[in-house]
């Protein structure tokens, strides 16, 4: 390394320092503090602070409410992300072929995406209304108890979430479709590939990387899902829509059990990191293969 390179490197580090300091203060410090909190029995309202090591984690290990929330979080994440990705890619393909009304289609999709989750949830509360809701009216005036039936509440929440976030996948996939050179398709045509073969051997492989990225973002969001079920069902009935973040929220802000709630938060954090790491590995492999 020449002196000039060293100087430039020092200079670079100096320029990075403010950003690193901010990240440290705003991310690392609170993160470590939550970890520390999760090792304590801490109820500040009653002046209780007591170090209990992994006590909360041991309790959570055999806590049916925790496992039910973990199951709900997993189910919600897998189903909603899967449906969003499949529907999103299909819609992107349909929109590409669409000559007229594409702008309108995108505007409508963006509207759903731009709406705050709380507004969406309120909207769906009315759509799911047992007797006056549009969804039951469309289903030939059935009186399905969408939000009050333990078997229907989670599907209802997932549908609302799919409606809200599927546009994100559509737009990313569409952007990628626009960058695929038309020469490739022409070449395929010359080689005699049909539409299905073109889709299978050209379009989908070229989409896979962006779809993985979309799925990564959506999965991380879904694992931390909170507002849509908080407003629609409050976690009920019988906790069938309570996710880990709702359980953490109730423990932290309603029961004011800071240590216990933090332990749930730490578990969600670990889960999100593990899933993100798996996705990144997949992406690296894709990146090398491409």
């Amino acid at each position, binding site marked *: 390394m020449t002196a000039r390179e060293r100087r430039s490197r020092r200079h670079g580090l100096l320029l990075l320092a403010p950003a690193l300091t901010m990240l440290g203060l705003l991310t690392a410090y609170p993160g470590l503090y939550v970890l520390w909190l999760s090792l304590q029995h801490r109820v500040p309202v009653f002046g209780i602070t007591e170090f209990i090591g992994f006590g909360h984690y041991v309790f959570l290990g055999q806590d049916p409410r925790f496992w039910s929330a973990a199951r709900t979080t997993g189910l919600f994440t897998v189903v909603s992300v899967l449906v969003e990705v499949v529907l999103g890619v299909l819609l992107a393909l349909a929109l590409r072929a669409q000559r007229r009304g594409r702008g309108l289609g995108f505007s409508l999709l963006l509207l759903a995406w731009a709406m705050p989750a709380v507004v969406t949830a309120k909207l769906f509360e009315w759509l799911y209304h047992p007797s006056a809701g549009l969804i039951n009216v469309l289903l030939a005036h059935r009186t399905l108890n*969408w939000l009050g039936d333990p078997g229907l*509440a989670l599907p209802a929440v997932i549908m609302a979430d799919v409606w809200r976030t599927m546009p994100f996948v559509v737009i990313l996939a569409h952007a990628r479709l626009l960058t695929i050179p038309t020469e490739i398709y022409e070449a395929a045509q010359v080689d005699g590939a049909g539409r299905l073969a073109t889709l299978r051997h050209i379009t989908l492989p070229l989409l896979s990387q962006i779809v993985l990225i979309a799925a990564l973002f959506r999965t991380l969001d879904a694992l931390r899902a909170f507002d849509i079920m908080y407003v629609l069902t409050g976690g009920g009935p019988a906790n069938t829509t309570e996710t880990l973040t709702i359980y953490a929220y109730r423990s932290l802000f309603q029961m004011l059990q800071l240590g216990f709630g933090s332990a749930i938060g730490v578990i969600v954090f670990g889960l999100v990191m593990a899933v993100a790491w798996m996705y990144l590995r997949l992406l690296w492999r894709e990146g090398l293969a491409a």
Partner: protein
Amino acid sequence: MLVRIAQYPSVTSSPLALLLAATLILGGCAGESPDRGAITLVFKHARILGPVDPIPPLLREFEARHPGVRVKSESLPWTSDEQHQFYAINLEGASPGFDVMMLDVIWVPEFVRAGWLLDLSPFLDPTEMAAYFPSAAASATYAGRVWGLPWNMNAGMLYYRVDLLTRYRFRPPETWNELISQVKRIQAGERDPKLEGYLWQGKQYEGLVVNVLEAFWASGTDLLGADDRLFPDPDHAAEALAFLRGLIEAGISPRWVTAADEELSRRAFGDGHAIFLRNWPYALDLFEAPDSPVRGKVGIAPLPGRTRSAAAPGSTGGSHLGISRRSAHPAAAFALARFLTSAHAQREMSKAALYPTHEALYHDPDLIRHRPMLPRIHELMLAGRPRPVTPHYLVLSTTLQPEFSAVLVGIKSPRRAIDDGRRRLEHFLVSSR
């Protein structure tokens, strides 16, 4: 400025907080307060919905009577849960951001234990609390001291359709069996598939706990016994839960009450789609609104009991005005709380369907002219019973909501829900006694 920060030891206990404090000090030096000498009180309260908001004129009146005091009114989030979260974060963070604060009646013991409220007893005249409903005064009192002035009053009651009951020559039901047989007769006679029987609140939230408590009381038991024992009489509690589930199974209540809150049930009844409804008194004004389909057809009664002559108490609710222990102007803040809870101010507040805590106002001819049912509501409120008065109320409620909900949707037996709830509560409560 430095001295003032040092008064709050918990602020300086962590490096991040120190950094924040430093920013505050630096920021504080930049601007001088515009008018010295004048006191500004911050009043935190939930906004009043509807066409009339009596609070701003009342605050201007207070300012006119107290030269040198200005009141800044700040609204709280919508729901009780979010308000609790707001207070917990700000008060635990020792924020001196507000003086007079609106409190849900169920929070008082918890906030007192946390040291967030100012003891109002030294400011009070000895007989001052006697003007309020005894249950409201009791819920503002903890450990023998008074921590809030009752501001508005609520109690659960039974709404019924006068026109339908008259058509079948029924009197308002006094027992649950009467209510059930009336629903069956009226539904059979009306042949309207949209007409539901009895609506109440069964969504997994605080309102569910209120409805279950009322069922417990009707069955002669409670959530907390005399010595703060949980579920002192599990047999009767299980019976009450089974009764609520039975209402749904028998079709007396529609299946969707398991997702109903106050507004969902209020709207269905208000649209004319139900015979009976359990709700708070606020709904009455909406039912009597000029464009309401049920205008002039709604009566109120106590919640039915298990046996005749033993009407069940409705749960009481409402809010108090308390004073933050961090308030820099406790005397002025108390004057404001006392003014806002005075009979004069509550008379104005009643225009927005907030029911007074002063018993005398329920027999005030002026008010009765606009609200002929006031004396009746007075009786119902007098008969009401508060939810368990304990600093752990929110732990109780949050833990039991899913258990009760599981009974209503039929995935847990009442007995198992009670056992599971008790086991969880013991884990959380034993460690914080």
